[in-house]
C-alpha cells in the first residue's frame, strides 16, 4: 500500500460508508517514517492515533509512541490556538464585531467524536466586510501584527479574502472577509451567513460558527479549489457534514447558486466521494455526479485549478465578476499599482510587479 492510500484511509477512519482499507500489518520502519511525516504534515495524526488505539491501524510499540508524541505536539499547539481564538472573539465582541469561527477550531468541536481527532494550525474567523478594518485594528491592539500590508487602503474591506495576523508566540489569525481570493470570493455574499449560527463550547465559553449550510459551503469551497491537492482535513470535514444530513441540501445549493458556485460544490462533493471512497448514495452526490458546469463556471474555476492557476489569473478573472465599472477600475488599480509599503513587503519594485503579473497572465494563456 502506498503512503498516500494509507493517509486517505486514515482520513476516512470511523466515517460510515468508507470502503478504504488500512494495512493489516505494521509498516516497516522506513515506510512508517514516511507515513508519520505525512500524517503530521497533513494534520491527520489525531485520526491515526484513534485508529491505532482502537486496533484498526496495526503499529509497533515504538510506532505508537512516535504517533503519540506527534499528536501531543499538535494538541499543545491546539490549546494555544484556542486561547487565541477566545481572546480574539472576546475583543471583537467588545467592539460590536460579530465573528464566526471557521475551519479547524470550530470543526474540531462541532463535527468530531473528540476535538483531539481534528488537528488545526491557526485561527480562522469570518467577519463582515464593513467590520474588516476595525477587526484588524482590534487584533493589532491585542499584539498581533499583519504579515503583509494591504495592496491599497480599503482593499481588504472591499475585495480581499483575508488578512493574516501573527502574535509574538507565532499564533496566526486569518481574518476572513470571504472564503476564497479571486472571483468566487467576490461573488459570495457573506451577509446571509451571519443570519444564524451553530455554537460550540470551548473552555466553558460559547463560540459561534456558521450554521450547517454555511459550514458545508465553506468546506466545499476549500475542497474544490482551496488547494491543488485537497487537504484531507477539509475533505473529512465536508464528509462529516454531508453524511450527517442525508437529505435537505436545498439551502446549501441555494447559497451556492447565489454565489455562482454550484460547479464548485459539485466538484467538492465528487472529490470527497472519490477520495474517501464513500459507498452511501445521497441525493447531493447523485446531484453532483450529474451536474454539468456552464461555460462561465468553467471559466471562473480556471484560475483556481489547472494550468492557469495563479494570483494574476485570479486577479484578472475577478474583473469578470465585479459589478460596476468603478469597482473594476479600483480593483485593477490596486492590483496593478499596489502601495509602496505592500511592494516593500514583497521585495518588489512597481515595474517588476507589473512585469511579473503580465508574464503570469500570458503564461496562463
Amino acid at each position, binding site marked *: 500500500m502506498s503512503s498516500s492510500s494509507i493517509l486517505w484511509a486514515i482520513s476516512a477512519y470511523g466515517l460510515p460508508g468508507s470502503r478504504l482499507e488500512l494495512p493489516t500489518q505494521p509498516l516497516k520502519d522506513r515506510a512508517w517514517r514516511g507515513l508519520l511525516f505525512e500524517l503530521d504534515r497533513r494534520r491527520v495524526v489525531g485520526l491515526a492515533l484513534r485508529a491505532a488505539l482502537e486496533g484498526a491501524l496495526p503499529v509497533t510499540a515504538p510506532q505508537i509512541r512516535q504517533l503519540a508524541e506527534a499528536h501531543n505536539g499538535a*494538541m499543545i499547539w491546539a*490549546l494555544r490556538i484556542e486561547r487565541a481564538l*477566545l481572546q480574539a472573539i472576546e475583543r471583537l465582541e467588545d467592539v460590536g464585531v460579530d465573528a464566526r469561527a471557521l475551519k479547524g477550531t470550530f470543526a474540531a468541536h462541532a463535527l468530531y467524536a*473528540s*476535538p483531539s481527532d481534528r488537528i488545526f494550525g491557526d485561527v480562522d474567523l469570518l467577519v463582515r466586510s464593513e467590520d474588516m478594518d476595525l477587526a484588524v485594528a482590534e487584533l493589532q491592539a491585542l499584539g498581533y501584527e499583519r504579515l503583509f500590508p494591504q495592496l491599497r487602503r480599503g482593499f481588504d474591506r472591499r475585495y480581499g479574502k483575508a488578512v493574516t495576523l501573527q502574535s509574538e508566540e507565532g499564533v496566526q489569525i486569518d481574518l476572513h472577509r470571504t472564503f476564497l481570493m479571486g472571483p468566487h470570493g467576490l461573488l459570495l455574499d457573506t451577509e446571509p451567513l451571519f443570519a444564524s449560527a451553530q455554537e460550540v463550547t470551548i*473552555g*466553558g465559553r460559547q463560540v459561534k460558527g456558521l450554521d450547517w449550510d454555511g459550514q458545508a459551503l465553506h468546506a466545499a469551497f476549500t475542497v474544490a479549489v482551496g488547494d491543488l491537492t485537497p487537504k484531507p482535513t477539509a475533505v473529512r470535514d465536508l464528509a462529516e457534514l454531508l453524511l450527517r444530513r442525508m437529505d435537505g441540501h436545498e439551502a446549501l445549493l441555494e447559497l451556492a447558486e447565489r454565489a455562482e458556485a454550484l460547479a464548485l460544490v459539485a466538484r467538492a462533493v465528487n472529490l470527497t466521494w472519490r477520495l474517501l471512497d464513500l459507498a452511501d448514495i445521497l441525493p447531493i452526490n447523485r446531484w453532483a455526479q450529474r451536474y454539468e458546469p456552464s461555460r462561465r463556471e468553467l471559466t471562473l474555476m480556471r484560475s483556481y485549478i489547472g494550468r492557469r492557476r495563479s494570483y494574476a489569473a485570479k486577479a484578472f478573472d475577478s474583473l469578470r465578476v465585479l459589478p460596476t465599472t468603478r469597482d473594476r477600475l479600483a480593483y485593477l488599480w490596486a492590483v496593478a499599482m499596489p502601495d509602496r509599503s505592500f511592494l516593500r513587503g514583497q521585495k518588489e519594485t512597481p515595474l517588476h510587479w507589473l512585469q511579473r503579473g503580465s508574464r503570469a497572465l500570458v503564461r496562463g494563456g
Partner: protein
Amino acid sequence: MTRWVRAPGVLWRETFDQVLLLVPGREEIVAGNLCTAAVWDALSDLDDADAIARVVRETFDIDAEAADQDVLEALQQLRECGAVVSHEQ
C-alpha cells in the same frame, strides 16, 4: 464535605496517556498522567472525591485505598495549577 469543580475557562485535550490543560492567566501547559486524565474526565459530572475515586477504581481496576490516594493527589495537583477549585459544603 469538599466539592471539586473545574475552574472556568480551562482549555484541555486528551492525548494517548495524558490530559493537557491550559489554565487562564498561565503560560505553561500542565500535563497530567492517566489518573489525572481520568479525574479530569470524571469532573465533567462529579464533584465529590469519593465518587471520583470509585470511577478511577473501576477504570483502572485498582484497590480502594490506592484509588483514594491517587485521586486526592490528582485533585491537589489540579488545584495547585488552577485547573480545579474546591469549596467546603
